[in-house]
């Protein structure tokens, strides 16, 4: 594990932590963007160039902007009391328990992982042309299903967010 990994891990974890703890929702969205950027750089460091740039385009370019729009559209919902739910202690306990189980599993299963672990081979030279061929060959059915899902989600999101009948637009 090199210095780059630790820097990226620090950016990602700090961004995620800030995204769920800050009081101002706009600051939360900005911290979320930092976490997404850290993850995209981690993908690039793992030699997954296509996934890294897709992460930048989709998450930083679209999802973060969508979150900011939703925050602005629900601006009147600013909380006067605390930002955490009444049952926050239970939620925190569940999250801590889940993390404990995950960390235990990761740390204790390392011996069972393939021998390649620890000595990563040469970076796989994956070109975009290869990815395109795979998408149009082996993965063509999932690709079509995702296309259908994205169309349905777009229409559904517009329909759900439309004004209700008989109600003046606000």
């Amino acid at each position, binding site marked *: 594990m090199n210095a780059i990994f630790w820097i990226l891990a620090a950016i990602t974890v700090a961004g995620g932590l800030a995204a769920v703890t800050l009081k101002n929702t706009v600051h939360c969205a900005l911290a979320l963007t930092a976490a997404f950027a850290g993850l995209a750089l981690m993908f690039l460091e793992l030699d997954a160039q296509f996934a890294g740039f897709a992460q930048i385009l989709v998450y930083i370019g679209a999802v973060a902007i969508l979150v900011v729009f939703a925050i602005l559209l629900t601006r009147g919902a600013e909380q006067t009391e605390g930002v955490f739910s009444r049952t926050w202690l239970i939620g925190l306990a569940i999250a801590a328990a889940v*993390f404990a189980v995950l960390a235990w599993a990761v740390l204790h299963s390392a011996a069972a992982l393939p021998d390649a672990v620890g000595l990563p081979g040469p970076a796989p030279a994956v070109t975009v042309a290869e990815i395109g061929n795979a998408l149009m060959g082996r993965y063509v059915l999932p690709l079509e299903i995702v296309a259908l899902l994205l169309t349905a989600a777009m229409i559904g999101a517009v329909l759900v967010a439309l004004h209700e009948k008989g109600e003046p637009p606000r």
Partner: protein
Amino acid sequence: MIHATPLTGYLLVAAVLFAIGLAGALTRRNAILVLIGIELMLNAANLNLVAFWRYGPHPEALTGMMFAVFSIAVAAAEAAVGLGLVIAIYRHASTADLDEINRMKG
């Protein structure tokens, strides 16, 4: 027996991120912040997929990275529908505070 391999590091970061997202989804009052927590959890899963792909025995097979790319596409659809639902609920109840939205009857 504990080995500190690069893969272990990535998996631990993903576990930390997943726990942070879960804590956010379970403890925040604002519906948008709950969605942010869910996005963080999805991203943690993607990091696992890419890390296993890179350190697995056959990185040239593209499987893990393809899974992550499809997962990113599905997460984008989820974010659009989720935020649309939050806006619809806000318009209906004039609040995005999940502690106050406790009736199923409009």
